[in-house]
């Protein structure tokens, strides 16, 4: 499964949710969906803006972990 590490990166860059949402151009509610991992997909344009604002690569925000089917 894909894990979103956006809050870790935000903490590193010391940026608040409100500021990031404003800079990316999405609502805080949508950013919250993204942060909590409730989102189903992310547009390349949004990902590009996040990387631009946080000065990072997509791999710093997104991570992959093998799902344990027995759980």
């Amino acid at each position: 499964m894909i894990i979103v590490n956006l809050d870790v990166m935000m903490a590193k860059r010391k940026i608040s949710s409100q500021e990031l949402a404003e800079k990316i151009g999405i609502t805080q509610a949508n950013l919250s969906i993204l942060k909590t991992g409730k989102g189903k997909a992310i547009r390349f344009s949004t990902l590009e803006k996040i990387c631009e604002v946080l000065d990072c690569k997509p791999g710093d925000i997104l991570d992959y972990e093998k799902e344990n089917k027995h759980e």
Partner: protein
Amino acid sequence: MSKLGKFLKILLIIGIVLLIPLIGVSPFLLNHTRSYIYSMFVMYPNGVLALIFVYEFIKLFKSLEDNNPFCYENVTTLKRAGIISLLISILWFIDLLFMVFIMNNTYINYVIVLVFLGILFFGVSVALYILSELFKQATDCKIENDLTI
């Protein structure tokens, strides 16, 4: 609520208001004849099911008013309406069998009307089932789209 929604609500209220005294008065009017027994087992359930059918559509209009027609509640509403329509269709066929074999009423026009009603409601139930599946897939698509950031 939209004009059609209001009309359906009024129809439901009139139906309920007429249904209750009708159940009480019918035995005296029909004088406990075979028609009364027939009404008890075919026409009353049919009437009640038709009212539930209208009620389901009122719920559908309410969600249309809220600008949120693609939700899972509407899928279940349509599915329920389809099942009700199927039950009405079955009742019409029972009515047909009752008329032909027990009441010995083989008046061709009556038989044709009953067969037509049975097939019509069966068709409606199939259409509603397909519509509910359509709504389900549309809702899935909408949720996926809503959760794409």
